[in-house]
């Protein structure tokens, strides 16, 4: 048997490592994190990247002025590259300084002053060596062909440069539309640049001036906003406001660069704890420790200098089965739990809290749970003649459907309990959310013996009757009610989910037609406002109720106006309250306004509030335990692991099974014997003949 083992091992790999280790051999035993990505990031330019899979990388590479404190809850901002939090000065129309509690209507401008630390340095890069700008890009194959690299200190001008880039039509930043409303002069700059591009003139951002973003000196940036915008600090914690060195942009802009994928979109240059050493988004992305990273320590531990690991290797993994399989074999360090593998990993303890199954505990895994600051909902298009609008009948119909959609069942089937039914548009962890009885949506739920309970179907049927659709048929004509659900659901799990939707509506005798389309067509329909019912989700940009309630703000409608209010909900009372709430500080007064707003949307039911997902993640025993921070995007620097322990586990978990080989060999021998006998018989037959 041992000989056989040796033969296989030799034939397949010829080394001591388990033959199914998918990672390069020279990384075994190093302080390297092995993780995965499922979709190649499209943009790594910080002015452009907005998807979570892009932010996952550039969050480690770029450093905006602020960051979320790693351990504090509720989430709180702290300076990252600044010496202190930005200093805010409010000015009125005449340029006079106002007190910080001045009413929003009086504030004409908000001035933010940012003071930079002096030890922030960029990663090594050829663009910082003037001589490298002289090498013709057409004769190089990649960045490695530039022989020299250097670094330099981040200056205020770099921050200003990046803010200007938000207006650059060549970059097409997704937040330009929003920021031009606030940053003074940004819209004009964008229009100016657009006009230049149209007539084919070159664009030089360094020569353009922007009133709203000025480098006062090498260490001070002044940003001027129109009016008041308390949420701006949160934007300052996103890579959109990270520094970009102008010489790097010049370096990449030379002809011959973009053809070799040498651009900010593919080869980022930042000051963060890591830099992108290898970018092959078809296969692997590799982050290496930035040797010039500034002094940064784990909160409360001045001896733990960040980053704690040397390298992070992200492999492309599109399918769930290989991903989960490799995780169990010890080749990935942490894993989210796909619903389908849930039972294997998790048991619910008698007191209702999830814990690891015996098998997983034997493997020394750790379970991490957290509620995501995101929500799912089923929207009812308010422009729809049947169930939209503010008529009593339409509202009752929506309410009936909201009751019938049994999200408790959905959570148990599709999420295996990893979620809670939503009562309103504000998820837990965000200011304005109400726990327990105070948070119950009276339209769909009741509070019974200290427990949230969905209203019985009879209530929904009664509402349906009152809406003029007894038993799902029109009260006068008897025509059955047929509704349409638009979804961009695709993939293996979609059918089961769509079947579930149909079942929910059928409980009321209402027929549901599902129109599954691709993302593209779905967007198109939403923009035209021609969908009837749709499912959608929202991920918080920042932990403020404004970022959720604006999804229902009338002037933010999707149809025609291309806002994010996809249900096209419009209630003047709600809109008025929203404007008031938007600029308030977190306070009981703000909570009161929010309570009023929530009551309005619960009654109007423009959405069936679906659920708030819980994140369950598994980590191997060799990973240092960390509380997940779901707002921060630069968490890689806090990650830590024990490589020796990992190697030991990989060896015990990966031993190829040999018996199938024996079976195959026996089978081959059997065929051989049969063939021989057939051969002999034929020979004999011939001999006789």
């Amino acid at each position: 048997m041992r000989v056989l083992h040796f033969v296989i091992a030799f034939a397949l790999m010829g080394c001591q490592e388990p033959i199914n280790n998918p990672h390069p051999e020279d990384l075994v035993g190093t302080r390297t994190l092995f993780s995965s990505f499922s979709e190649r990031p499209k943009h790594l330019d910080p002015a452009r990247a907005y998807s979570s899979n892009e932010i996952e990388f550039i969050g480690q590479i770029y450093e905006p002025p602020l960051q979320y404190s790693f351990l504090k809850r509720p989430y709180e901002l702290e300076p990252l590259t600044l010496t202190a939090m930005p200093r805010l000065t409010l000015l009125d129309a005449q340029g006079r300084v106002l007190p910080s509690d001045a009413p929003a209507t009086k504030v004409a401008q908000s001035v933010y002053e940012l003071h930079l630390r002096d030890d922030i340095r960029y990663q090594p890069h050829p663009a910082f060596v003037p001589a490298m700008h002289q090498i013709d890009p057409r004769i190089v194959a990649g960045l490695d062909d530039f022989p020299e690299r250097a670094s330099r200190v981040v200056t205020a001008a770099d921050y200003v440069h990046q803010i200007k880039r938000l207006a650059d039509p060549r970059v097409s930043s997704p937040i330009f539309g929003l920021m031009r409303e606030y940053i003074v002069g940004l819209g004009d700059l964008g229009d100016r640049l657009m006009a230049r591009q149209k007539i084919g003139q070159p664009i030089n951002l360094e020569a353009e001036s922007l009133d709203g973003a000025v480098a006062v000196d090498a260490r001070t940036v002044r940003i001027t906003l129109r009016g008041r915008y308390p949420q701006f600090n949160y934007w300052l914690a996103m890579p959109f406001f990270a520094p970009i060195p102008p010489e790097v942009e010049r370096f990449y802009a030379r002809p011959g660069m973009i053809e070799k994928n040498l651009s900010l979109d593919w080869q980022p240059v930042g000051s963060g704890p890591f830099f992108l050493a290898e970018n092959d988004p078809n296969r692997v992305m590799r982050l290496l420790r930035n040797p010039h990273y500034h002094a940064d320590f784990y909160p409360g531990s001045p001896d733990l200098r960040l980053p704690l690991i040397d390298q992070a290797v992200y492999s492309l993994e599109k399918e769930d089965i290989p991903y989960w399989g490799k995780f169990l074999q010890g080749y990935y360090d942490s894993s989210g739990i796909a619903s389908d593998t849930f039972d294997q990993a998790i048991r619910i303890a008698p007191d209702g809290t999830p814990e690891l199954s015996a098998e997983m505990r034997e493997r020394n895994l750790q379970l991490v749970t957290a509620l995501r600051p995101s929500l799912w909902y089923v929207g009812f298009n308010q422009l729809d003649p049947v169930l939209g609008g503010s008529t009593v009948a339409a509202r009752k119909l929506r309410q009936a459907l909201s009751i019938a959609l049994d999200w408790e069942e959905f959570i148990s089937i599709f999420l295996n309990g990893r979620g809670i039914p939503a009562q309103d548009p504000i998820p837990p962890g965000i200011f304005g959310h109400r726990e327990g009885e105070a948070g119950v949506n009276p339209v769909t739920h009741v509070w019974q013996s200290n427990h949230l309970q969905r209203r019985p179907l009879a209530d929904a049927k009664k509402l349906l009757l009152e809406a003029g659709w007894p038993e799902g048929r029109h009260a006068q004509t008897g025509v059955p009610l047929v509704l349409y659900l638009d979804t961009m659901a695709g993939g293996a799990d979609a059918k089961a989910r769509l079947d579930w939707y149909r079942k929910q509506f059928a409980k009321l005798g209402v027929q549901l037609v599902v129109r599954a389309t691709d993302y593209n067509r779905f967007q198109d329909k939403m923009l035209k406002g021609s969908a009837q019912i749709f499912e959608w989700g929202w991920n918080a940009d920042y932990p403020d109720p404004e970022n959720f309630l604006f999804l229902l703000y009338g002037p933010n409608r999707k149809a025609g106006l291309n806002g994010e209010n996809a249900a096209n909900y419009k209630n003047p009372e709600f809109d008025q309250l929203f404007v008031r709430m938007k600029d308030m500080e977190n306070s009981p007064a703000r909570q009161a306004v929010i309570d009023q707003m929530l009551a309005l949307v619960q009654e109007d039911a423009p959405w069936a509030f679906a659920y708030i997902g819980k994140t369950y993640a598994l980590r191997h025993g060799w990973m240092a335990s960390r509380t997940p921070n779901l707002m921060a995007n630069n968490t890689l620097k806090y990650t830590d692991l024990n490589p020796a322990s990992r190697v030991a586990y990989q060896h015990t978990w990966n031993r190829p099974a040999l018996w199938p080989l024996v079976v195959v060999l026996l089978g081959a021998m059997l065929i051989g014997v049969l063939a021989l006998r057939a051969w002999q018989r034929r020979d004999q037959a011939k001999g006789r003949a």
Partner: protein
Amino acid sequence: MNLAWNFQPTVLISDVLLFLLLAAVGIYVWRTSYSENARATWRRVFASRMGRWAAWVMVFFISLGVLDSLHFRTAVETPAGQVQQYSGEVLSVLDALLTPLRMAGEKTYSAPFAKTLLVKESVTLADGSVVRLAPVIAHIHPLGTDKVGQDVLYLALKSVRTGLLIGTLTTLVMLPFACALGIVAGYFGGWVDDAIQYLYTTLNSIPGVLLIAAAVLVVDVQIDAHAEWFNNAAARADLRLLALCAILGLTGWTGLARLLRAETLKLRELDYIQAARAFGVSHARILARHVLPNVAHLVIITVVLDFSGLVLAEAVLSYVGAGVDPATPSFGNMINAARLELAREPVVWWPLATAFVFLFALVLAANLFADAVRAAFDPRGAR
């Protein structure tokens, strides 16, 4: 009022086409019964044990498909004095026969013949404590239930119709193109031949899956843009299925056309056709009376051979995302949904195993039947 007998027949387009096809086969059988030659050939098909077996299995599957193609809508209670209304849900005779399976939905997975669901649930007891237990289920499911608790046997039986339609209706689309173009190209030669050859070389040179995927996307856009064409979900799914058949047919006629062209090239030089031409018989007449009957065996062999390939193609196309409507029960959709279930623990093997067994039986029977047909019809095979 007895609701069970109060129904309105509903006819989907694919039903019409399927029955047309059956009628065509019927006519063929009726005509065959007068031709001693053809009867002898068909007797050869059924002479082999394998062929007979395969034929019986096919008959079983086809009758499932036929039962599933007789659609109706049941009446709903309507207040007296008003026009009788019918439910929007379209059912088939098969659905009606399988009512016990169809209506016995569970909440989620349960193993074959299991008495409880597969997954445990947190249940809050009266005293407020939470326990984890698997709920008891009310019905027996011989092949278990899937993720949303539908009976797997029912799903598999429903999938048969989709497979049959794809295997047969595609041929229906393909045949006119293949026959007309192939025979015309071979018979007339010259620029007609060049043009037709150009057409099929062009189509042939495009990788098949890409062409089909692109075409399916086009059709999807059209279907979405015209939601008003459909008054119920069944009609919509039906059109999507038909579109897929049409696309497969329009991209798949080249092989048969090439065969027919080559055969016609040979036939054209034969004495009796030369003679017919010399007597001034019209081209149309020659093609219909002399050429077509003499290439019929090629058509039959190809049709039967293509069937299994098409049924298998549906599964792959569903994986690529260019298959039938996700709501249509089909083997491709079943496999696609079930492949993730192998990673579960305990393994949910029954949906995948069921899809495997049914698809395997259907395709195997089709392949064996095709073999028997080829052996009987192909003059070289008869040796």
